[in-house]
């Protein structure tokens, strides 16, 4: 109960941030642009953490490739943002983005069609990760690839995607990816209004994802997922279709991650193949582990606390951050298997 109160309080504080940002700078409650933009970024990270927690904490699917779904969502919205630049690019081509002009494209590749419409881009930000997760998940779960094997395969998946997106002739901007965005839905991106709107959109997404995840985990479906996590063979012998259950949760999780990526990219203003790097995915997994997997609040707590630590350490002592992150992996797995939430609930008892 107290947990829920804390959660509501935290959401209210977050919701107040853009409004406080509008206060004059000398006001004691004024919040800087930096805080707002970084909080907006963390909210999308928290959504990614939720997605991972849904798959890992509840269904035992440790995906080391969720960063790929996140990045794919980001690329989908990035394509839309690139189309919106229009003739304002360096080369001034009415349709083609700068990098395509530079690479000598004559017309848009077919898979870029439709991305000039915002709803289509958002749909793709969900569908592409969803379909990819569906295919990979179907192949993997059907042949009963579980545990670390699935982890390695999903890691190979994001690694392969990273390599592929680094290629110039993929038509996704190669090494440089997409950047230099101008506007979204008619709002110039570098204004306080746009930052605020994106922030609230992220917050809405977070609440929506939280609502869906808690509905799923509290339903009978959620209890079957936990059963599969704890004893997959037993769940199968009891007559549950393990493959379908896992597939459902994996696809749902990938779609949530894709949406998070779609809101992440306009806020940071860049998307490049580095987002696919296996390190990113596994870092997101550690957010969940630190917060406490198997509890939705834990995922959020982990995403915010680890990223706060990262922001602080990389400015204070950049060399120490990777030691700290590595140390977190070791400490959490050895000493805090239930994460920070586990600490709280133990204290409560």
């Amino acid at each position, binding site marked *: 109960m107290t947990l829920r109160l804390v959660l509501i309080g935290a959401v209210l504080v977050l919701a107040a941030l853009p409004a406080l940002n509008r206060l004059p700078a000398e006001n004691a409650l004024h919040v800087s642009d930096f805080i707002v933009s970084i909080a907006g970024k963390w909210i999308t990270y928290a959504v990614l953490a939720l997605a991972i927690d849904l798959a890992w904490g509840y269904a035992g699917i*440790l995906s080391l490739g969720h960063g790929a779904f996140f990045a794919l969502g980001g690329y989908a919205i990035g394509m839309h943002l690139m189309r919106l630049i229009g003739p304002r690019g360096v080369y001034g081509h009415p349709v083609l983005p700068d990098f395509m002009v530079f690479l000598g494209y004559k017309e848009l590749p077919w898979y870029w069609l439709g991305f000039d419409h915002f709803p289509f881009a958002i749909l793709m930000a969900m569908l592409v990760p969803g379909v990819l997760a569906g295919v*990979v998940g179907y*192949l*993997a779960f*059907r*042949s*009963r*690839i*579980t*545990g*670390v*094997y699935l*982890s*390695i*395969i999903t*890691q*190979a*998946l994001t*690694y*392969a995607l990273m*390599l*592929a997106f*680094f*290629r110039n002739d993929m038509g996704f901007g190669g090494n440089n990816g997409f950047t230099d965005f101008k506007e979204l839905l008619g709002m110039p991106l570098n204004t306080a209004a746009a930052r605020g709107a994106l922030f609230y959109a992220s917050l809405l997404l977070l609440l929506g994802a939280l609502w869906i995840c808690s509905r799923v985990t509290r339903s009978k479906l959620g209890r079957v997922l936990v059963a599969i996590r704890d004893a997959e*063979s037993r769940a199968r012998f009891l007559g549950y279709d393990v493959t379908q259950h896992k597939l459902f949760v994996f696809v749902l999780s990938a779609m949530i991650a894709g949406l998070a990526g779609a809101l992440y990219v306009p806020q940071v203003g860049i998307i490049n193949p580095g987002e696919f790097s*296996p*390190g990113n995915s*596994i870092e997101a*997994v*550690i957010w969940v*582990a630190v917060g406490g997997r198997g509890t939705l609040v834990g995922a959020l707590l982990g995403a915010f606390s680890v990223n706060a630590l990262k922001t602080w350490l990389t400015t204070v002592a950049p*060399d120490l951050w*990777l*030691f700290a*992150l*590595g*140390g*977190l*992996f*070791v400490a*959490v*797995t*050895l000493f805090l*298997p239930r994460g920070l939430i586990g600490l709280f609930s133990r204290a409560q008892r």
Partner: protein
Amino acid sequence: MRTGAAEHGGGAGGFPAPPFLKVDMRQLLLALGLMLWLALPARAQDAFTAALPGLAGGFSDIATSVEQLGVLGDPRALPVLRALQEGRLQRTADGRVLLPGGIDAATGQAADAAAAETVRLNNRVRQALRGALGRLQLVSPDAAERGAAAEAIFRARSAEDVPLLQAAIAREADAGVRAKMVLALAAAQLVAPDEEAKRAAVARLGAAGAAEARALLLEARASNPDMATAIDVSVATIDRALSIRRAAETLFQGLSLGSVLLLAALGLAVTFGVMGVINMAHGEFVMLGAYATFVVQEACRGTPWLAPWSLPLSVPAAFLVAAAAGAVLERGLIRHLYGRPLETLLMTFGVGMILQQAVRVAFGAQNREVISPAWMQGTLMLPGGVAVTQNRLWIIVFGIAVLLLVVAAIRFTRFGLEMRAVVQNRRIAATMGIRTGRVDALTFAFGSGIAGMAGVAVSQIDNVSPNLGTGYIIDSFMVVVFGGVGSLTGTLVGALTLGVVNKVLEPYAGAVLAKVFVLVAIMLFIQRRPRGLFALKGRAAES
């Protein structure tokens, strides 16, 4: 003058010794010396010296005498023509030709270079020079130079070279150079009027199987329509030879990539395949091995006799460093997580991060270079013209050696026996008096040490940098998973297959897409053989 001196000397010998003998003796010696000095080049002198004055004339004279000098095959013509080519040959008003330093090309003596001017070239002379120098090099004492000359003639190919080449082939002792000359002869005969020789040349060019010969034949096909069929047969022969050579080279590259994968995956086959411990820091152990190689190299740099052997020395060093790190990791951390593979995965990933960052802090983020010793450098030509880089060949040898070592250690040693016992049944092994904890630590250290040895090989073909390991970890897992967990044979087959498939796909799809295809192919492959490839033994097996 020469004749005069000889008569005088001869005369002095014929008469009884006069009283002023001393003076006469001096004259005699002088005359004899002169005779000797001039008699040496006497045989070729006519043609050589006769051709020289032309160099002091007009451009067409120069070209003619250059051609003459080229055909003569006189070694003395070489410096003259080289000087001419470099624009350092000078001529005097009275028609003498001077080498750089004011030496008269005809007499070899210093001459007055005051009024000399540089002999200039035009295109015709340059062309003549190239041909002449090429021909002259055929008689050079240096085999490499003769080979280069044969190649030059092959490219220039003119019918005039036929007798020259035939003579050179008859003298040639070096088989490699002779083969080049035979090819050049065939090329020259192809443009010669002799029909019979032309046919023979077509056949010979076909048998040689070189890409240049193919272009030559296609060119000749246009001008000799009556020989089209013969030429087509030869071209087909060449194409066959070339594709075989390409296949052999691809195979070699694939095998060498495969042996790097094998080295990286062997350690994993022990820690993951045998123990069931998933170690994401495995790539960092490879990295530690590479840095150990670097450190050993730096330590040996000061001692000249030790420096070429730093690489063999770093093999045990890398093994020990990585094995020690592995033992500490296993005893300190991993053993607390047995039976929880996902946690082990995350924890070891964190350890890998820490190791990477520690090395980055200690050695800096930039790439470190490990130099291949001289005996590993260079390219080896296998029969059939297959080019093989030596360091990759050594890596293949090294990979096989390490594989045999690992097999032997597991099969034939006490440690291997205990290891297998613990894997098969931990409790019974313990009741038999095997200290299972110690065996765990040793097994893990063993696998980690193999990763360190892989680092020695990787340092030869890749940049030594703190994130070197990340590039190998996913591939290594793919090899182990593809080949079959817990099977060393599977690891060998898996590594070599992945290496070769990667290299076969590369020309068609590019290096990156080839990798993507392989990853996708593995995912599809395990659809068909999930149990075969994921046949788990040991502790991680599902209960």
